[in-house]
């Protein structure tokens, strides 16, 4: 398998995986339980999820470490086991995919609000990211993804933390935007233009957006990013806002619908597509078919997707 940076430099869309949390819930994770505890107790479930996304055609598999920073783990009394939580999550995905796909270390927000608006110092948040990322890198991730950020200052701290640990590890950074009458902003007030400039400046290799309010908004968000950056763009949309059906939350956007919108984003020049909350291997498989079908016959060769 060629190094991730070389693959990134070649033409063609890269496909990432879909939701992990949604699948963990289907596999016995209880309400309010720490998802990262699965990495300590049930790594076979993580392997199974990674395999199902690999079989669906994903080339980038994320680790179950979204809440794997010590600041987040502290809520469950697991911060003392940060290294173990992160290393075991990486190892599980690696066991499942070998060198058939890239392993991406997921890093979500610290859950704290930075000074002066909140009580968390930049040093506290930065150290927390560094400790998590050090464990991810030591266990051999191919790239790191800082995701679902709403505060640009925090996202910048996270990207810089990764950069301070390794000059070579590719770093993605995605933020979550709301649609407002004045355009797209995070709840903390970061615009797409500010995000693009700030994340690029901090040293991110790939930038974009994840989660959000459905994939149609993501097309507008991607268009806005393309205006403000020359970096490759990553879009991982959720499958819409969940609706209740017989008391059970159901995500409204189908695999076919999301693949169709994914096609539009690929045509615009989005480099990496994938899914967030509510997306399943079915969504990723539909995107795989879309990507393969829109490959030009005379286009440059690319690795055969995993069967």
């Amino acid at each position, binding site marked *: 398998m060629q190094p991730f940076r070389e693959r990134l430099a070649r033409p063609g869309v890269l496909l990432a995986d879909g939701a992990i949390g949604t699948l963990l819930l289907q596999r016995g994770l209880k309400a309010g339980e720490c998802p990262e505890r699965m990495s300590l107790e049930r790594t076979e479930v993580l392997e199974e999820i990674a395999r199902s996304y690999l079989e669906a055609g994903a080339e980038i598999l994320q680790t179950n470490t979204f809440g794997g920073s010590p600041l987040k783990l502290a809520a469950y009394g697991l911060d003392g086991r940060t290294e173990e939580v992160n290393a075991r999550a990486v190892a599980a995905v690696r066991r499942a995919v070998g060198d058939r796909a890239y392993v991406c270390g997921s890093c979500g927000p610290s859950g704290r609000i930075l000074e002066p608006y909140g009580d968390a110092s930049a040093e506290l948040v930065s150290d927390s990211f560094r400790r998590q990322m050090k464990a991810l890198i030591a266990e051999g991730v191919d790239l790191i993804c800082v995701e679902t950020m709403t505060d640009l200052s925090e996202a910048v701290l996270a990207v810089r933390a990764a950069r301070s640990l390794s000059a070579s590890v590719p770093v993605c950074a995605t933020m979550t935007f709301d649609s407002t009458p004045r355009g797209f902003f995070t*709840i903390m007030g970061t615009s797409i233009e500010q995000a693009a400039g700030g994340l690029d400046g901090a040293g991110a290799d790939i930038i974009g957006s994840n989660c959000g309010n459905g994939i149609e908004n993501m097309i507008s968000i991607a268009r806005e990013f393309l205006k403000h950056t020359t970096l490759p763009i990553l879009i991982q949309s959720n499958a819409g806002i969940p609706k209740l059906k017989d008391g059970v939350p159901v995500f409204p956007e189908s695999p076919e619908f999301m693949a169709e919108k994914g096609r539009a984003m690929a045509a615009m020049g989005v480099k990496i597509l994938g899914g967030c909350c509510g997306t399943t291997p079915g969504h990723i498989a539909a995107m795989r078919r879309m990507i393969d079908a829109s490959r030009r016959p005379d286009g440059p060769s690319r690795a055969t997707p995993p069967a």
Partner: protein
Amino acid sequence: MGIIQELSESLQRGDAGKVAELTRRAIDGGLDTKTILDDGLIAGMSVVGERFKSHEIFLPDVLLAARAMVAGMEILKPLLVREGIPAIGKVVIGTVQGDLHDIGKNLVAIMLKGAGFEVIDLGNDVSPQRFLDAAQKENAHVIGMSALLTTTMPVMKAVVDLAKERGVHGRTRIIVGGAPLSADYAREIGADAYCFDGTSAVECVKKLLGRS
């Protein structure tokens, strides 16, 4: 510009020092305590809520304004107590059991306090028993519950059921909110109302208590 208007505007800017100073000056100038509260602090916070709702300002601005509100209230509170001016209502609030997300809940608490309610914040991961124990002990008018996770939403029904069991539902009204919630869900579980955000929570509680 009058001092009350200046107070309201300083609060909107999130200038805690100025709000404290103006609150003191207004009191020393013999202005009515209720006027300082209603037309200065609460009026300012109401503008902040509206501007946040319409996306003119963002979370950091609201957090700074809330801090300024607290700075003013700390000075005003002893006077309110001495003059026997009651809060317009008492709300017990929390994020439901199993859910650790409290940014949304905190925002609702900020807006309710900003509107003159007394808010007892139970934090996150609050069990149905704790909600009801607190509501009964405090004689709360309203219980407000928040959930961010689709998986913790069912706890809200357990709270409503326990309120019925203890015979306080009806006397104590129950409101719910959070990203995955909807008015349909609130109806389904027997809550009194669903609130989309902090500003609508204020309107909703006022309406439920007949204070609007």
